[in-house]
């Protein structure tokens, strides 16, 4: 099981701030994002950044049980 977090725009578009996911072996953030975009097509036009365990990762990183996955739009602090 892994936890997926959403922030800002992604949280608003998905209507949730987190969800628990049961994933197949070798699942990647890209797989999860594909499902999310299918379920919430409003995400499609946005560039979505990905973090695992509070670190930026490439979309094809393999996920492990217990990981904290996060999806969010390009940051705009400052």
């Amino acid at each position, binding site marked *: 099981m892994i936890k997926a977090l959403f922030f800002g725009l992604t949280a608003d578009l998905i209507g949730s701030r987190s969800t628990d996911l049961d994933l197949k072996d070798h699942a990647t953030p890209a797989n999860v994002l594909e499902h999310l975009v299918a379920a919430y097509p409003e995400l499609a036009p946005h560039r979505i950044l990905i973090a695992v365990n509070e*670190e930026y990762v490439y979309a094809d990183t393999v996920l492990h049980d217990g990981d904290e996955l996060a999806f969010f*739009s390009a*940051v705009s602090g*400052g």
Partner: protein
Amino acid sequence: MPSKDFFELATSPIDITSVARRVVPPECGATVTLDGYVRQFTRGRETLHLFYEAYEPMALREMQKLIGQAHKDFDISNIGIVHRLGRLEVGETSVVISVAAPHRKAAFAACEWLIRELKRTVPIWKKEIYADGEEWIEGEKDVTPI
């Protein structure tokens, strides 16, 4: 000398002077400070207020990484970064970055680098609230994982 670096997320108003003073080591004579604040007008549209949200633990880690990298790349003594979260009114300070260094030039260069990188990498998002609606601002830049 113990490091006086610090990085914080704040939910109450930030005082620029106190940030600038906390980075001061006794042998340095100058601090460069960047402060960002809520603009009243953006591209001609009036902002009523702003709302900042963060992925807090990751934001703090990314701020700490920026400080570590700045110490490698610039000859500086201390760095302080404070970013405000939650609702901000027009004119309030959203971010302060102060850098103390033995020589001014490095302080200017490091401060400029830090704000650029903070805007690119630290997971904080700004929502603009206008008279006729609101909008999450999306950054222009991508982040390449290390």
